[in-house]
């Protein structure tokens, strides 16, 4: 992943438009994917992408380079997306407590093996819509951790800097997110396996 491309902070801070255009081109694909996965809506993702770079342009002068440029941009984009999500989300119960066996949301209940399905069955539009629905049902806190760690491929440390939470909270949220997604997908794919077995 080409996240660590070097940009001249001096050129960016001095308002060099060409350098800014190069930075936009370098980071817009992953920031768009982040926003799309967080919000599940292409128009909102596009709005977040534009807001991210408008904010970045305004605040580049304050960027001291203590974190990487990519981490700083991710933080702006994630915050924009989370602000939109939190407007429509009720207050959350804590998602940072360790996962327990009696934990309703994360506790595995679906234990049918569906890994054996042919790859083509995972690629149907219905199956892909199941993936979209499942991620859309995660709380914003869990979704952010999953998108940054698993889909954007960022490290636990980078994710903790972006979300401004501890590394241990990132790990707990990631595990909860993965377990919830597995549970939701199992509800669909296990039923699919059973239907095939009964045919």
């Amino acid at each position, binding site marked *: 992943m080409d996240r660590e491309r070097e940009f001249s902070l001096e050129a960016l801070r001095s308002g060099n*438009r060409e350098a800014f255009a190069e930075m936009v*081109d370098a980071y817009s694909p992953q920031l768009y*994917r982040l926003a799309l996965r967080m919000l599940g809506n292409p128009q909102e993702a596009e709005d977040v992408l534009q807001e991210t770079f408008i904010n970045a342009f305004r605040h580049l002068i304050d960027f001291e380079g203590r974190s990487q440029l990519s981490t700083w941009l991710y933080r702006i984009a994630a915050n924009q997306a989370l602000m939109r999500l939190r407007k429509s989300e009720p207050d959350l119960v804590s998602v940072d407590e360790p996962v*327990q*066996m009696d934990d309703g949301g994360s506790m595995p209940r679906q234990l049918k*093996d569906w890994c054996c399905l042919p790859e083509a069955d995972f690629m149907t539009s219905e199956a892909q819509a199941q993936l979209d629905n499942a991620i859309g049902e995660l709380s914003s806190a869990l979704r952010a951790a999953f998108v940054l760690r698993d889909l954007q491929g960022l490290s636990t440390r980078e994710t903790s800097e972006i979300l401004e939470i501890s590394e241990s909270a990132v790990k707990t949220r990631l595990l909860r997110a993965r*377990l919830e997604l*597995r549970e939701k997908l199992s509800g669909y794919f296990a039923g699919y396996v059973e239907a095939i077995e009964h045919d």
Partner: protein
Amino acid sequence: MIEHVNCGEMLHSLSDYIDGEAQEAICAMIESHMAECQDCRIMVDTLRKTVSLYREQESRLDLPQGVRTRLFYSLDLNEWLD
């Protein structure tokens, strides 16, 4: 000697295990447990598959050309659109 873990204890280390970041001793405990517990083996396999399905889906997501064009115009960078 490998210590035995129960299903609940395994849960905490699952992410590190499927990411290949768990310590060797933890991996050995999980693998020993999975050899005897079919439910946990299915859980680990389907958890891995879940993550891999999302990663595959992600790899097919591109920035649409129209989004890039509108972004450059909104930032007054259209001079550098090619």
